[in-house]
């Protein structure tokens, strides 16, 4: 029975993706384009050449970070919806250090990444501390802080660090940028993201602290009863998830973005949440979903050029995947569904 439930857990997102694509195709057809041509263009745009694949990986990089940020916090049972704010605070601190401190090259890169990580961690500690010591709803607070972070970033690129007439900051100097992988759009930031993902995976599933953290997330009361310091785990998971997002922000600035501008990182936080949920809070699955989302986005530009279907179709498909996956995962947990599965499998055994 354990095996079937594992298979079901993998099947649900796959079926959801399929359903989302079917509805996506209906929308594309309704807009007067040929769905097959559109999907071909989508595929070609995302994976058609090594160059396009590099672009997909570079788009996936910030998403992997926010996805892992959400994943880590939820594993401990805290809903950190503030990935976006933490990501932005990392990016902000990184930009300030990278452009104002007159340092370049490897020392600058290391300092930027470390400072960005710390900034993200501190920003996440605000909802963490308020949840643990004031019993407050961490979701509302972390979302409010997203808006504050976005507005603070606005102060930098429109006022304090504005570069001439355009509302954006000075770019990171060439010497402090992350190197590209094989000349593609993807940079070492992607490597960092994968390493962080593997580290989270190892920590959660192969260390005793990770096991305790998951236990707190699975059943807080039982964990408390067993003498786990639940509050400490809550704070730690906020800190670490914020640090992951902050590292993501600084790596993205050094890797592909280079300067702060209006609308930067908008939506990354909620994207991270949906990737973690579709990946069922498994770090490696979350990373795969991030690459899938990035492929949808990169490919949809090619699709728009080829067929005139607006790129926001990919947003709809993405949104449908999460709507279907979450509903599907709830459905397979219903006793009726389990009974149905049992009947099907036992019938097979008889035959």
């Amino acid at each position, binding site marked *: 029975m354990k095996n079937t439930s594992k298979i079901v857990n993998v099947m649900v997102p796959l079926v959801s993706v399929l359903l989302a694509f079917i509805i996506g195709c209906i929308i594309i057809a309704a807009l007067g384009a040929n769905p097959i041509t559109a999907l071909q263009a989508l595929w070609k745009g995302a994976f058609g050449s090594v160059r396009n694949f590099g672009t997909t990986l570079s788009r996936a990089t910030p998403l992997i970070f926010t996805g892992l940020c959400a994943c880590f916090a939820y594993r401990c049972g805290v809903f950190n919806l503030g990935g976006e704010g933490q990501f932005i605070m990392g990016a902000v601190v990184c930009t300030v250090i990278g452009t104002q401190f007159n340092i370049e090259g490897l020392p600058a890169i290391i300092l930027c990444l470390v400072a960005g990580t710390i900034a993200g961690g501190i920003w996440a500690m605000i909802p963490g501390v308020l949840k643990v010591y004031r019993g407050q709803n961490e979701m509302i607070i972390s979302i409010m802080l997203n808006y504050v972070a976005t507005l603070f970033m606005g*102060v930098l690129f429109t006022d304090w660090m504005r570069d001439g007439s355009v509302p954006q900051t000075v770019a990171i100097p060439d010497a402090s940028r992350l190197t590209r992988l094989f000349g593609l759009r993807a940079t070492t930031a992607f490597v960092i993201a994968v390493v962080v993902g593997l580290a989270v995976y190892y920590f959660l599933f192969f260390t005793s602290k990770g096991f305790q953290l998951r236990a707190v997330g699975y059943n807080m009361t039982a964990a408390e009863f067993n003498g786990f310091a639940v509050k400490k785990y809550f704070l730690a998971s906020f800190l670490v998830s914020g640090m992951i997002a902050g590292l993501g922000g600084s790596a993205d600035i050094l890797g592909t973005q280079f300067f702060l501008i209006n609308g930067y990182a908008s939506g990354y936080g909620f994207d991270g949440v949906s990737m973690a949920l579709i990946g069922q809070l498994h770090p490696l699955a979350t990373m795969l979903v991030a690459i899938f989302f990035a492929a949808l986005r990169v490919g949809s530009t090619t699709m728009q050029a080829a067929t005139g279907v607006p790129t926001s179709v990919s947003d709809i498909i993405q949104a449908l995947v999460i709507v279907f996956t979450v509903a599907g995962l709830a459905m397979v947990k219903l006793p009726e569904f389990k009974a149905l599965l049992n009947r099907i499998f036992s019938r097979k055994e008889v035959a």
Partner: protein
Amino acid sequence: MEFVTNLILASVRMATPLIFLSLAELYSQRAGLVHIGLEGLAAIGSLTGFLVSHITGSPIVGVCAGAMAAILVNMIYAYATVTLCAEQIVYGMAINIFAPALASFIYRVYFGAGSELVQVPLMTNLSALLGINADSFIAKLFLEQTLMVYLAYGLVIFTAIYFSKTKSGLNYKAVGEYPRAAATLGINVIGVKYIASIICGALAGIGGAYLTTCYTTTYVDGNVAGRGFIALAAVIFGRWSAGGVLLACLFFGFCDALQIRLQVASFNVPYQFFQMIPYVATVVVLAIIGMKKAGPKSCGKPYRKEER
């Protein structure tokens, strides 16, 4: 003096969408459904309200359409959380991702990607409808408002009476407190939860549509700007009572109004710092009121008939 009167008038205007959204949350939570997807419902309500009032030229029809659209989207939430017993927080989040994407897609398809900013006429004030010339402050406060403002305050009074004085209101509350006990008394728990979702969707849709039919003449992505979450905070701050929620909304509306007035006054401070005021105020308020738990007791828990 003019600064103060303008501030008060703007507070009433800015509190109105929050009142609708918080009442939506209140009706949902009273039936045991925590709904963090109001932001999304308001987004779809806002887009539909804008689109329909653009097509028909009537903001009132737009508001009704916005309510309908949000009800439809909320039925997805209701089906998933009530019938499929999906986790409410997680599904609310899914609605938050799905509905704004849908709204922005519809806008782009209908108006084209590079189109210029489309504007719609705003709802007229009561004073203009009645042909009264409102020039004194009191007259402005009570007469120079759109019908939606009166509707919001009417709903607050109705809600307060409904939940404390009527039998049906007490039954409704029982579903949020002890659904199993409610069921033994013959209350249709699942039915109440669905009705709650319809009310919640309608109110959230109206709150969103207010933004495009009474407040600004245009629709932009993200125009709800966190109000769905501020409404959640208002429900906590207002301790789940209609009167408390009203006061909380007026407070948050005041913060929003203050922010706008300060921006207009333009000190030598980047305007973004003023824009932060409502969000920072929400965090500070939540931090101050601390951990007294007063919400409906079975909030967030799925209800299954057969389970014992």
